């Protein structure tokens, strides 16, 4: 098992992590000044855009008082809804007062968080505390960052960025135009994702619906009309906070923490199949395994489900301590890493795929989760004093080759010596599955990482894109040669079933559990 004690010490202030080369993380005080050796040894690739969105540049919904709310509410809402909102305003005001955090949060965020908190307060009253806390943490995590969501295109170098003012910009290094997507229904964007095996389709999780934009890559217009967007909505399915495309590009799943059903959309037909199971209350996020065989769907309570996508049956996984905070799949879809709220460890589940072809119905999944890494608080003695790193984990990301695992640690916003930080592990599947320390990724001073994602088709290793609380988006490349089975250098090949790898994973299973004990 790997722990943070094995990591190299974090960088002093003012230093930022630039890249990984020759098995070590290189740092520099200025992003422009790239170490010479990196330039000489690594192939000169097209470096992706680094962007900076200062908060001031956006026209935000500047509204702090609850009395002026009506002016900003969409008047397409019915009279009933407006009166209900008014009722909420008056009756939940005291409740929101009790949560000072919430109010701090409220002071500088837009309508969306407000909506969520409003919904959450009611849900706290009507439902249970777990849903409320899930929504609340969701809100806090996103509150101070201008970038609300980020998504790489699965096959090319373009990406979409959703900003706080509910607009989405699409950046493509090969073209000069950056289309900006705006739509009447595109409010409180929580997630964006590109459709795999398609050049143009972008799904956006909005407050009341899921929008699927069709952005023509050859088009020169900077403002695609709202006619390019498909609206997928289902009564009772709001706010949508997470979406996931199936890797084959045929289905889209969407989830809401207020709705117990996961919607599986047939986008072309605009029809959906609700997958509903009793218990849990809502779904906090969705993660489709890269081979398309499973979907992870955690609930706000101490329970998460793993759906099998052949016949859409699910396995229940009750956690002991808290709800499942985040999770990610290994590229071959056989291993699931997840973290639980209130614990500082990473668990792993190994799924042996059911013998396809024989429709046994229930795939024999793993029996118990194993701990693979311990991220409890560790103090590092640096030149600038002790720095405590560790604690709860906010999110996980695994690169498409299965070689690097990025872990976003929450830190403590109040304490200065406990910053939020990204810890990067090297992962190894042969001969046993284990995590090895790689290093910490840090940005500028006073900037905390908020979102991170690996580039899906980076040629020379892995490329981690991080959105910082300051509104900056940077890219940290990890240069390495893939040790595993060569990926043919093809983008999109994670879809390829690779039986030989599965076999090895199967063979290692017993060893793996031995090591854990």
């Amino acid at each position, binding site marked *: 098992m790997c722990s943070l004690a094995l990591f190299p010490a974090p960088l002093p202030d003012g230093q930022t992590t630039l890249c990984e080369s020759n098995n070590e993380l290189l740092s520099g005080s200025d992003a422009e000044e790239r170490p010479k050796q990196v330039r000489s040894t690594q192939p000169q690739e097209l470096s992706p855009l680094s962007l900076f969105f200062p908060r001031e540049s956006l026209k935000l919904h500047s509204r702090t008082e609850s009395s002026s709310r009506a002016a900003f509410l969409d008047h397409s809402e019915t009279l009933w809804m407006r009166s209900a909102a008014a009722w909420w305003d008056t009756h939940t005001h005291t409740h929101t007062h009790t949560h000072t955090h919430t109010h701090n949060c409220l002071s500088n965020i837009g309508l969306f968080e407000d909506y969520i908190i409003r919904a959450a307060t009611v849900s706290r009253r009507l439902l249970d505390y777990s849903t409320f806390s899930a929504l609340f943490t969701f809100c806090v995590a996103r509150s101070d960052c201008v970038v609300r969501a980020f998504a790489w*295109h699965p*096959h*090319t170098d373009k990406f979409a960025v959703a900003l706080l003012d509910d607009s989405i910009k699409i950046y493509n290094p090969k073209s000069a135009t950056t289309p900006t997507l705006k739509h009447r229904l595109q409010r409180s964007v929580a997630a964006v994702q590109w459709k795999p*095996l*398609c*050049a*143009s389709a972008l799904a956006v999780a909005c407050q009341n619906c899921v929008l699927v934009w069709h952005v023509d*890559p*050859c088009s020169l217009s900077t403002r695609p009309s709202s006619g390019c967007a498909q609206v997928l909505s289902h009564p009772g399915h709001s706010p949508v906070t997470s979406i996931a495309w199936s890797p*084959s*590009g*045929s*289905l889209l799943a969407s989830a809401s923490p207020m709705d117990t059903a996961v919607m*599986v959309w*047939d*986008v*072309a*037909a*605009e*029809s959906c*199949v*609700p997958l*509903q199971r009793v218990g849990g209350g809502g779904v906090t996020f969705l993660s489709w395994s890269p081979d398309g065989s499973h979907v992870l769907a955690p609930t706000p309570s101490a329970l998460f489900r793993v759906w099998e996508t*052949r*016949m*859409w*049956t699910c396995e229940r996984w009750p956690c002991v301590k808290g709800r499942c905070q985040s999770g990610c799949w290994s590229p071959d879809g056989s291993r699931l890493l997840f973290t639980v709220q209130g614990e500082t460890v990473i668990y792993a589940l190994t799924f042996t795929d059911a*013998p*396809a*072809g024989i*429709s046994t*119905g229930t795939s024999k999944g793993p029996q118990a989760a194993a701990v693979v890494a311990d991220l409890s608080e560790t103090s590092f003695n640096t030149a600038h004093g002790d720095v405590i790193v560790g604690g709860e984990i906010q999110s996980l990301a695994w690169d498409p080759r299965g070689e690097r695992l990025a872990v976003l640690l929450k830190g403590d916003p109040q304490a200065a010596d406990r910053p939020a930080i990204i810890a990067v592990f090297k992962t190894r599947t042969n001969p046993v599955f284990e995590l090895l320390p790689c290093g910490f990724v840090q940005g500028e001073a006073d900037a905390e990482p908020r979102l991170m994602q690996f580039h899906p088709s980076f040629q020379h290793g892995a490329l981690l894109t991080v959105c910082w609380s300051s509104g900056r988006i940077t890219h940290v490349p990890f240069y390495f040669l893939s040790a595993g089975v060569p990926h*043919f*250098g*093809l*983008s*999109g*090949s994670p*879809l*390829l*079933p*690779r*039986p030989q790898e599965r076999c090895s994973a199967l063979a290692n299973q017993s060893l793996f559990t031995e090591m854990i004990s």
Partner: protein
Amino acid sequence: MASANDPFQFQEFEEAGNLLEANRDATTISIEDEDVKPEKQRRAAGLNPAAGGGDDEDAGDYDDKTELLSGQQKSPPFWTFEYYQQFFDIETHHVKERIIGSVLPWPGKNFIQVYLRRNPDLYGPFWICTTLVFAIAISGNISNFLVHLGKPNYKYTPEFQKVTIAATAIFSYAWLVPFALWGVLLWRNNKTMNLVSYSFMEIICVYGYSLSIYIPAVVLWIFPFEWLRWCSIVVALCLSGSVLVMTFWPAVRDDHPKVIVAIMSAVVLFNILLAVGCKTYFFSKPEPALPANNSSVAVVIKTTMATSNGKGEKVSKFETLKLLEKCRKERDDAMHRESVLREKLRQYETRMRSTEGLKQKLKTLTMDNKELRKQVKALRTEIGLECSPKFNGKTTKDIIYDLHEKERECTSMVEKAGKLSLTIDDLTSELANTVTSKTLLEDQVQSLQQNLKDMTNNQRRLLKLWEDKKAQREQFALPAITQKPGQRPFVHKGIQTEMSVSTSQKLPVNAFETKPFSRDKDSKNALDKHSFPTYGNGYHHDKKTFMHDDAKVICWRAAASIAWAVLLLPPVTAVFVILSRFSLLHPIHTISECFSLLTSAGAIFSLILLCGVILMVGFLNLEYYTVIPTIACSKIALLGQLLHPRQFVNSSAHCIMGIIVAWCCAVTIGGRYETIGYPCTHSDGSTHMCLNEYHLILLLAGAFVGFSHSLLGVIHNMNFVSFHTVQQYKYLRFKGSLPLVVKCSATQALYSVRNYVVVYFFLGYIPKAWICKTLNLHLNSSIHPLDSIAGLLDLSLLYHLWISATFLLFTWYITLLLFRIFVTEVYNFPVQSSFTEEAHQCLPKVLTDKEPMILKFLALQDLALLSQHSPSRRCEVFSLSQPGGHPHNWNAISRECLSLLADLTQRLVAYHDTVATNGRAKSLSTGSERKTSSETSVTSGTEDLMSPRPTLMMKTPASVFARSIVGGPQSPLTAPFTPDLDSPFASPSLRRLTAPVEQCSPWHGTVQSPHVMRRVPKLWSTSTDSQANGSPPPSPASVASPQQQTSKPSLLAQFLQNRKEQVKHFLAKRVLIMYLFNKLPEASSQALFADSQAHIWALEGISYLIQASFSEDQFGVVQTALPSILSCMLVLQEAVDRHFKLPHASSKPLRSASSMGDPTYKTLRFALRATLKTAIYRITTTFGDHLNAVQMSAEHRKRLQQFVEYKD
């Protein structure tokens, strides 16, 4: 099996034998006799008749054989009278035999095996049940009469309701229980591979005959002795129960023990329930007389009341005296009773004492028994059954061991024999294969020879040409010989053109490069032609049977769905009863009333009726369903669909079923709705039967709702069965769509009732008058008529109408939903089979078949799923055939998919061309042409729409040919519900759209219209794919015909054309006609993509297979087909893109709020477009730069490059 059982049995018998006899030899013999024989008999009766001996076994054997043989005969379908006729075709002595067989069960004599196997009859069961019904009713009446015979105040009245109740009970027992049992056996039979299975008729027959013993028993029940009745019940129960148990034992023997116990106990329990129920209901005990106490107490109360009122002391005194007397008498009585009871108590005590004595005796006896047992043990050791060291010789145990040994040897021998036969089978199949390959090789040799011949011919021709040229050159070289100057170049040109034609036809430039490829194809074609005969001489016969087999799958699924719908009916009915009778003020009273209603005979009868309705609905679903929706392109076409005779039959059936359901509703709601007539007094005092309008309005509402349901079914394409993209288990799917069904039925019922009320308000007097006249009823003038505003504004009436309509629609929708869920379930076709008999059921073969369409769809769905999920089955697709080394599976699959895609492309191109040629005249009223001239009606719709072209086009032989194909019977698109293409209401545009679908053979497009042919080169810049599809060159006749026609424009045609234009112009001004004949927006686009689900699956399947081939295809099977697949996809992509640029093509349909009709067909074109793009991307991302090595035309490469760079 036997070895596991035997030791226990032997021990039992040993003990018995030891107790009885001391002789060792005798015991062994008795073991042999008693134990082995039943075993054998059972086996003979149940499992393998060949193993047994003896008369019974022989009979069973014979019956089995005859049954097997008769199974081959074709029997008429079950909805015809002929089907049932055969069950009444039986002779008297057979019936006698069977009755005796059922009355005297004999262990080992299976009733079905011995008496019935030849042919189950319905004659016996029917008459036995009827007799039993009347016997019960009559003897019940008689016994009732006998019980009350002595009573002075008893007046005998015959109770006729006993007949109905008995009939309901007996017939429902004799039909429903066998039905359930049959279902259970069928289900278990699928789970465990049981060898014995009974047909439904056989089970019914057994049940019917098993009731025959009850007839004498019932007659015995006339005598009012309880002991006699119970005795006869027990005897009858034992007999009939043992018949049933012995009959069904072989069918469940191999099952799980729990299931056996459950089934058997259910069978016995139902039997007991029937017998005891009949006995207790129809033959009541004589009730004891009422005790006198009550009356006297009542009198006391009365008198006290009287005294308190103070009427008269005298009277009261007298009364009290009397009362006192009575009281005294009662006291005496009580004393007397007390003494009697005391006596009884004493008797009981003495009995208790005696029992204790008996117990003591029992104890001593058990002691004795123990001692005896000890002795027995000693004796056994003496005999040698329990191994004693003294005895050495052959003990019984040894003998048993020997027997076991022998048995094991036997089984091993049998196994060996089986193996040997298997190897023999293998050898024969190999032999067959070698023969096949031999013929193949011969064919190849032949084709090679043919090629050689061709080449030598070419060579010869070339030589000739060369010589000709030589001669020409020489002619040129000879200037002295002069000819006419104008003639020479002409001749020269002619020669040249001829030469060029011949070279391009006979010797393509790349003839030598593509030779191996084309030869391969030749051999493949040759194989296709020759492989069918080699499958065996009866391929066509086989084909018919397997068609039957596969179609059976659908029928079974439909039957299962109907069975579930029937099972769901009782709870739904219960909910309906509670809802319809619910009153807020008396909730508990309502519930108890509902319970009593549900258990009444009338409710059971209406439930049986409703079951019949559900069966009928299910049958109609099965008959009318389609996987390709019929889309009417104009209002008139829709009208034509509604007025089609087939639809008329459907509507009237729904009407009748609606009436039946409404009648059941009326009976269950009760109250004022219950009967159609009621006695009423006229103004002049006479009584008549009057019409109950409430009953009538409910019945008519049922008919109306049924009718509107069937009409809406046409408009919403409710018979369209769509396949889901998300696979779920049946239960989950049902659960998920149940709320929608409830919502749909409630809203639909609301709309229907609203419309019905309006219609009844205006037209209600007609049916009322008619019913009155036919049934000779009167109208009650004192009651307000219902077809008035006041009458119809009755809230409770409206509620009952609505809830009945909801109930009706809900049951039907549930049936429909279950049908859809069951039919669209994924079916696994084997990719390849090792046996030639099953080769037709394999995926490649089913894919290429056209009929029935749903099988093709299921096969395509299976293809898409297997290519996505199942590596092992993909492996089978990529495998090579064993003797020949040909990728038959892949070839068949890819060819079928490509032909599907090419076909769609062709359709799109043709459509686009017609739109392009007369885009402005798109809304011309095509239907009206029919009225003007009978001559134009002969031409097909393609030419109709091309009206700007000269009339001569209409008379080309090609168009007539196309027409003849359009009307052909083998069109897959004229699936059940499509109106006949020849019907006058079908718009020609519809016909034109359907026309290209039918020509799945690629050559048809070349013949169909020369116009399309001329357009083709624009899109097919490479001719590779049309060549790859094996299309012969276009026939010269079709190309030549237009030129011939140009020479003679007829006057008549000119005249007709002018008239037509005039009429068109005239009609276009009339609004109604415009409304009727105007095309619905985007309907034609929908119709064009109506069957695109097949294309979507084909695209998915093919693209996944290609993706998987990158790592799994060991033999490079896919590589050869890759260029043609890619070009096919790209051409289709281009055609689809062009289609979406048309107006209305890319407009989204409105999302209907809630309707049971599946709207997925409206968006199929978008799904197809998305799937097509994804498929191309899937191939490009998988192969990446390797695609540069694929041979392709420059244009296609350009398009593909866009996909590689993600720019499309």
